[in-house]
């Protein structure tokens, strides 16, 4: 991912062909490996604003542990784990929080660049039910980018305590992508999310097939 930071590489004239392959081939190779991998393994990314519970969900999905805490910015690097949904082996990627596809800080750039340089079968946008309105702009951007997205409305338990009610069916119709409500910390809704991912992957494969 550092390759693109170095514009010199294209200018190097001693072995231009090789260098060029080094730069462009980098991405191509990345794409190839991911498509090659995705034959056996579905790729899922967890994205969203800081402190919405991506890492909690990651832990819940993969059974591994990455540090979670109650402040934004705990995750500064990408973590990778694996799980299976039914028969389907799935690779899950946890990302640092980001506010929009246009990054401001380094950690946001880490998350955004992941979406730019790797293709995913499903991108799960995790949002905080208590701040839905503030988080939807990123959902729009994911849809706009043509990424296969699912909206996971997390922290429903806390929202309910505040008396907030959300109608996910309506939102699903409005957005045109699957919407799941959950409380990952209480392990509520994680199974439904898995089911929706499986559904989404199989329907996407059908529509993508030749």
């Amino acid at each position, binding site marked *: 991912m550092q390759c693109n930071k170095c514009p010199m590489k294209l200018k190097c004239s001693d072995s231009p062909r090789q260098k060029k392959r080094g730069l462009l081939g980098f991405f191509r190779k990345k794409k190839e490996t991911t498509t090659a991998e995705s034959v056996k393994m579905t790729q899922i990314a967890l994205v969203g*604003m800081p*402190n919405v519970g991506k890492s909690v969900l990651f832990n819940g999905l993969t059974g591994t542990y990455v540090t979670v805490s*109650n402040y934004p910015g705990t995750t500064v690097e990408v973590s990778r784990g694996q799980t299976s949904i039914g028969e389907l082996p799935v690779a899950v990627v946890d990302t640092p929080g980001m506010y*929009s596809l246009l990054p401001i800080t380094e*950690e946001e750039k880490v998350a955004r660049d992941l979406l*730019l340089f790797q293709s995913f079968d499903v991108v799960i946008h995790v949002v905080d039910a208590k701040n839905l309105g503030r988080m939807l702009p990123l959902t729009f951007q994911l849809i*706009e980018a043509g990424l296969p997205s699912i909206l996971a409305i997390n922290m429903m338990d806390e929202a309910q305590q505040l008396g907030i009610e959300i109608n996910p069916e309506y939102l699903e119709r*409005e957005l045109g992508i699957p919407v799941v409500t959950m409380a990952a910390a209480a392990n509520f809704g994680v199974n439904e999310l898995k089911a929706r991912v499986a559904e989404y992957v199989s329907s996407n494969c059908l529509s993508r097939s030749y």
Partner: protein
Amino acid sequence: MLAQIAYPEAIEKALAEIESLLSRENKLSLDNIYPISRRSLALLVLQKDPTLWERLEQNDKLLAEIEAAILIASEQLGEPVTAAIASSRQQLAWQMEQQVLREPSEAKTPLSETIHKLTVNPITGFPILVFILYFGVYKFVGEFGAGTLVDTIETFFEENINPVVNQIVATIIPWQPLQDLIANDYGIITLGIRYATAIVLPVVATYFLMFSFLEDSGYLPRLSLMLDRLFKSIGLSGRAVIPMVLGLGCDTMATLVTRTLETKRERLISTFLLALAVPCAAQWGVIVGLLAQKPAALLFWAGFITVVFIVVGYLTAQLLPGKKAGFYMEIPPLRLPKFKNILIKTYVRMKWYFFEIIPLFIWASVLIWFGRLTGLFEQIIGLLEPITLALGLPEQVAPIFLYGFFRRDYGAAGLFDLQQQLALSGNQLVVAAIVLTLFLPCIAQVQIMIKEQGLKTTLAMIAFIIPFAFFMGYLVNFSLTILGVSF
């Protein structure tokens, strides 16, 4: 169904223009490289995304045309394109939220709201901070962790493990130097493993336990909010509080977390301050444990390090050009942490820390052994001795600074060990503690610093830190002597 967001006409026009410009340039056809839609790419280019712009920079003509399109759009809009794009998205989001979300009309102020106000208001916030520092840090980590626990495990080591190891090694290995590698005064087991498990581990464990609790409660962002003004004066935003507090656990971890800061300048300042004036848990835990008997000395040490932190931070901020950082941070809800989560988190951190330090402690033991065997160790200590004496410290402290080169906590543990044998005076302890605190960051931290800031910057920082640490120690010793203060 949301096909796509409709942006203001001026933006749509610019987007269409950029999309056609981009597709005209086959060599640069970004949509072959990136797995996101053409419209999305055009939006990023329109907002001058640095990653994409770097790719376009090879083509001046294209860039000029795009610049022109952006200029026209922002003139028609009367505001920057980024702002217009963000606001049309946000508008749609609020609209949609209204349709799908029902909120209770009268919001009651829950207890957490009251606590929130208490923690962010400086008048009540500072007493709360002092309360947490006193009970969480001084009582729990300092007295319980670095006092009771360390004493218990140390005694156990010295009475049950070291003699046995020494004896076994003496019977099975006939060669004295090899015996020293594993056992006796500087052996891998009798020194390296003992420092790691008996001195460092209890301190780090109690700190991580307390820190995990604070983390999950949501207190730290509120502390950031309260300290924002103080931090602004040293060129940092309140956001930097978290890496700094994290640095009190492990500076290596914290240096990595400086990534959450917005500007390069802010990252540089906080990385530097972490390396200089933020002691890690093992270090300050041991120091608090050492000075706990002399509260005045402890307060002096803490006050001195705080002043160094603020003054050096302020001066660095003045010297480094650049935009001052703004403060923007999510304030998460206050929550009562779940006990199980805290335990898991502490356990994971401990495991990470332990596996990281054990090899280093062993390496340090091997190096010291090698150094002693070849006489190199004595030579370096010989060089350090005059400095040590100038600081008013006994010559036996010189090796401690050498340990500090390997790891801060190793040095601190050495000091702790020495104190038990030598009974240093209050002043000597304070001077040694100050020098060790300011002294070189550990090897792991230096590695991360090089990774995040580059070799040149890191070397420059180290070149400042080492003489500075000794000079401050000298200054403190000198002033205390002149003023006739003794702790």
